[in-house]
């Protein structure tokens, strides 16, 4: 033993070094697809778009350095930028909470019946499978003038709003569409609800707690990590909201040239992602679009950080929850 340690260490250390070098080679080999992709499709474009954001660039001529002028124009001279930001804030501030509440409600309905839960779960989930474009086109028709909803409401003498034709109702229409496809969020909440230990409710029953008290003091804290997760995802996706708005505006506007319909009606569906697309790929203001993209990135990071910070006060982590 002792002689071993005295005589062999150099050799052994070399062996270990060789092994660890081989180990790191293997690790880098395994990681290489993502690392290369990260450098080519994330880091390089990020830096390039940061540079573009300080230029005027239309791809026909070289980028022209203009300093902060894109940013100045955005904040002080471009009312549509603020319109798009307001619309986006609306769809996040209203749409995300409504969707979370609805998902919890539907998940709780799913916990009710003892038999047939699998059937109900499948039915509630299927709309989430419908491709966004198809679902949006369907809703523009279903909620449209003379469409099925209008007709059915007519039976009970309620007049339906014009939804995607009316600037005041187009965003609520998009929220309805998101509620139909609530499936994925609902499934996550269902799993969380079924995970709440039954003893907690039994103990509360013995104490004589009401249904609301049980929901408020047991269910809500126990599913709060999932609420947090859904809120973070909802905010991140909300800022990039695109397909539904693009397709709905095109279908409701109904003219040949979809790009001219963006934001229809009256810019009420001009969300940040839509406006950025219009600037970048309809007008080829690539410098301005890049500046908008960076502001978007900063806003998303700030909102996510605020959510994470706030989570300490309202998210309850059970032991072992990572």
């Amino acid at each position, binding site marked *: 033993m002792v002689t071993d340690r005295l005589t062999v260490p150099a050799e052994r250390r070399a062996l270990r070094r060789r092994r660890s070098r081989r*180990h790191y080679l*293997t690790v880098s080999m*395994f990681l290489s*697809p*993502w690392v*290369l*992709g*990260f450098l080519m*499709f994330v880091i390089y*474009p*990020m830096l*390039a*778009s940061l540079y*573009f954001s300080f230029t005027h660039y239309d*791809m026909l001529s070289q980028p022209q350095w203009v300093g902060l002028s894109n940013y100045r124009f955005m904040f002080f001279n471009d009312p549509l930028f603020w319109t798009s930001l307001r619309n986006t804030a609306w769809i996040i501030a209203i749409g995300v909470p409504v969707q979370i509440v609805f998902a919890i409600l539907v998940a709780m*309905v*799913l916990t009710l*019946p*003892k038999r047939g839960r699998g059937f109900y779960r499948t*039915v*509630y*989930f*299927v*709309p989430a*499978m*419908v*491709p966004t*474009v*198809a*679902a949006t*086109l*369907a*809703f523009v028709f*279903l909620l449209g003038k003379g*469409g*099925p909803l209008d*007709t*059915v409401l007519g039976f009970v003498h309620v007049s339906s709003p014009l939804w995607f034709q009316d600037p005041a109702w187009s965003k609520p229409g998009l929220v309805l569409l998101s509620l*139909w496809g609530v499936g994925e969020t609902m*499934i*996550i909440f269902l*799993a969380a609800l079924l995970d709440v230990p039954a003893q907690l409710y039994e103990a509360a029953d013995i104490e004589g707690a009401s249904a609301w008290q049980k929901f408020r003091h047991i269910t809500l804290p126990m599913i709060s990590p*999932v609420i947090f*997760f859904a809120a973070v995802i909802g905010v*991140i996706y909300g800022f*990039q909201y695109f397909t539904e708005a*693009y*397709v709905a505006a*095109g*279908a409701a506007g109904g*003219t040949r040239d*979809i790009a001219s319909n963006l934001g229809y009606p009256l810019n009420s569906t001009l969300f940040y*992602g839509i406006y950025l697309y219009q600037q*970048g*790929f309809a007008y080829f203001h690539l410098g301005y679009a*890049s500046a908008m*993209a*960076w502001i978007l990135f900063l806003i*998303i990071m700030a909102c996510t950080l605020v959510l994470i910070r706030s989570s300490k006060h309202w998210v309850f982590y059970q032991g072992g929850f*990572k």
Partner: protein
Amino acid sequence: MAAHAGAKALTAGAGSRPREPRRKAGEARRKNVLLAIAKHSVALFFVVVFVSPFVFVLLTAVMTQQQALSSRLWPHPFQWSNFAEVFTKVPFWLYTYNTVFYAVLATVGVVLSSVPVAYALARMRWRGRQATFLVLLATLMLPAQVTIVPLYVVFSRLHWVGSFKPLIIPAFFGDVFSIFLLRQFFMTIPEELVDAARVDGASEVQIMWHVIVKLAKPAIMAVALFQFLYCWNDFFGPLVWSASNTHMYTLSVGLTQFTATHGGTVWNLQMAASLLFMLPVIVLFLFAQKAFIEGVTLTGVKG
């Protein structure tokens, strides 16, 4: 129904037991049945909510063009030929072929490239692993809009714009969401299995292939399904990269074009086309439901 069940409970227990508890048992049973009916009614209400859009889409899809514009709800006559007309009005087969082409190749790329990355993040020990994972997660926050403009510049220099290359080639460099999902699943595979294989002298590639991939088949299936669906539904990617090259339109983009080229919307055909577009994924879901739901749960609960 409740009364009938209660009466049955009464007659079944007649004779042997004292009267009082028997009546109580009957009442409790009746209460349970009523409660079950109430619960199922609520659940059925939501069935109507979620299913009715499908019903109206189907009914409209088989109406005549005039009738689709009227406020009649029931088709008269049933014009099933609409489904055939979809294929002649627009190159529906071409769109379908393009969609499948994109979805299959991108899915193969994502699975092949994401499994080893997830393995290195979940089951190998190396310095900086935690930090790397955090960087990876942070990129989930990065909006596609930040990278799309420079990528557009680069890809148009490479003459890739208007082809499928920008949609498919990046897929072979790993997808963050898939890596994340696979890593979460790989973490649940017992360490002892991996260690045992290492003691037996298996290389990391062998361990990944013979131990992890074998045990993680459901998770890999889920990732493949998610990716396939993502591509099938993807609108932004094909919209930007097709750059108005109608030969590479996928169904997502082709469906909106369908609206536009006819000036106004031909709703009966539009609904028929939408149905044809959603049908394959719904069938896929019904067959692979378990993998889906487990996958969705994994993203949310273990996150």
